[in-house]
């Protein structure tokens, strides 16, 4: 079976050791975590963890049940692309020179990225977008020589909170 991308979003108690427990579940079951984003909610006792993993279809049921067993996990949902907004931020460092300058500027305009820093010839480009956009931009800049790259990993929210997500 083809492995596919799964986005797991969970609310957890905001205390020490929780991330280790969550990561432990993925490790025990042999799933790799591709990206991970954790931040406090308006209620500081609660954090949201958004986590992306690549796995086969029975992943969701297995992992959800195991995560639900953790005392510190309040809620677990899988977010599908169809029914959620998924974004990640990327910072991309690249050297600009007379050869690639024009191409870079065009790409920035075309993709709607932002230049957030230029020091001497080194510029940092920021992009916020979904996974597909991010990948496309990366593939486009790759031949121009990406010097350094940082990605936040995905954050995501379900589009209508109480709506039925027919893919789940």
């Amino acid at each position: 079976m083809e492995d596919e991308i799964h986005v797991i979003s969970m609310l957890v108690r905001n205390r020490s050791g929780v991330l280790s427990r969550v990561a432990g579940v993925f490790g025990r079951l042999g799933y790799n975590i591709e990206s991970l984003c954790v931040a406090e909610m308006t209620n500081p006792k609660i954090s949201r963890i958004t986590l992306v993993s690549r796995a086969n279809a029975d992943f969701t049921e297995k992992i959800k049940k195991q995560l639900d067993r953790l005392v510190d996990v309040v809620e677990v949902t899988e977010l599908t692309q169809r029914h959620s907004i998924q974004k990640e931020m990327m910072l991309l460092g690249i050297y600009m020179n007379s050869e690639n300058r024009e191409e870079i500027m065009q790409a920035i305009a075309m993709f709607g990225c932002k230049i957030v820093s230029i020091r001497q010839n080194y510029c940092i480009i920021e992009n916020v977008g979904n996974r597909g956009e991010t990948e496309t931009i990366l593939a486009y800049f790759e031949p121009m020589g990406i010097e350094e790259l940082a990605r936040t990993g995905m954050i995501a929210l379900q589009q209508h909170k109480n709506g039925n997500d027919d893919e789940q």
Partner: protein
Amino acid sequence: MKLTGAQILIKTLKAEGVDTIFGYPGGSVLDIYDELYRSDINHILVRHEQGAAHAADGYARTSGKVGVCLVTSGPGATNTVTGIATAYADSIPMVILTGQVPTPFIGSDAFQEADIMGITRPCTKHNFLVRKIEDLSKTIREAFSIARSGRPGPVLVDLPKDVIQAQLEEDKTIAAKPKSEDGGKSPDREALKQALEMIVKSKKPVILTGGGIILGNASEDLQKFVKKVKVPVASTLMGIGGFPGTDPLWLGMTGMHGTYYANMAISNCDLLITLGTRFSDRITGKIANFASKANLIQIDIDAASINKNVLVDIPIESDCKTALVHLNKLLDENGFAIPGEEREKWIDQLGQWKAHAPLSYCNSEKIKPQCVIETLYNLTEGEAIITTEVGQNQMWAAQFYHFDHPNTFLSPGGLGTMGYGLPAAIGAQIAFPEKTVVDIAGDGSIQMNIQELATAVNYKLPVKIVILYNGYLGMLRKWQELFYGKRYSHSYIRNSPDFVKLAEAYGALGLRATRPEEIEPTLKKGLESPLPAVMDFHVEPEENVFPMVKPGTPLVETIINSEELR
């Protein structure tokens, strides 16, 4: 008035109804022990912290209460890990209180510091580090609640010394029980109805029970149910005692060393109803062939255990008791008719399989271990609490002692821990001082926690230890015989101590039997003694456990005896 952390701890334990703690003192918990000195909580001083954990486990398995153990930081804490992992594998409710170095020293590699939180994260249901005295009472309450609710399990609470020594105003101290403690989800009514229809229509049904039947206190409801629907019952090792071993509908244990007829029943049934089991590899044999002709109904309290190893047709998330109570009620309300003739045929067929290959052994001039257990069964009239280690002693105990009651067979089923039996027997004896408690051990396993004999003598606990002495790590030797060309690599254990002298050295009674006719008098003498008694039976060294399902083969290929292997 102010209370110290130690005082708050003891008060909360008392409020929680704790009357017995198994433990071992050390530097980080001196303040707690000082408080225990003034308390009426019964503290059982073991001789090794692993013993404390197993004893608390044995106490929990027999009494149904949460077992509690208390140890110091560092090595005290790490020594409990095997006991914790054993309880975790078998879902036993326990609270482990570990001392910890003062909070400012945590992470500094201080003397007797160990990251017990990190070490036990994968083998506890949950664990807590208490950083402030304000959280202490609440955390203890929560730990007990987590340990006993849902699918039970061990919970560890790490207690830094400065928190234990700190002080707090009394009126802020003792927390109430957490409100959220749930009595289990109520099961899906439609699924139950559907299940019942299947059960009633089925021509060849079998019930398979696991540890959940005992943990869920559902034995009586199961018996009522079975009476109504007339379905034979097989069990995993962990479910033994959940259904009377003397009932005509009892098929015995299934799986790797299960009875031939239980394994045939599961392989040929058209409906399998499982109650509180996770389908471990020791039960299913080759998984593709497991109950392959049957529809499956799985009732389990733990959603994560449903559809985990085997895909089922009707999953029901519920504790066993609630599900059975509902099923019994539905049966009473609707008056289903069981297909009598078809069922008779099925039960007849099971009888034939049973007649073809009953559990048996051949007597010889040497003592047969099975005979020791059978005689023990007869002498105790099946009313003893039996603990085991792991290996042959465990399998023979499960096969030849016919357990009629839940909470009387204590065996480290999931983790398979050598050294479990004696300390667990101590815990059981503390819970039931009037009962006969017997550890069935091997000469290998008994040496893994033999030091607890001192505990038994110390507290005048008349636990009985039956050693099936064969000079081998018998189960391993058998595998080496069958699958490793009889190369007995390090499974032959020479120079075991003289167990009779050893028992006497500890102040216990030591007895030995080397001939079959000595079995009964030896057991009688040992059982009648008011002392802890070690009974050393020198058994046929190369006796093997049968029936057997080779790993990776289906249950239907159960090997009945050694003849079949030649």
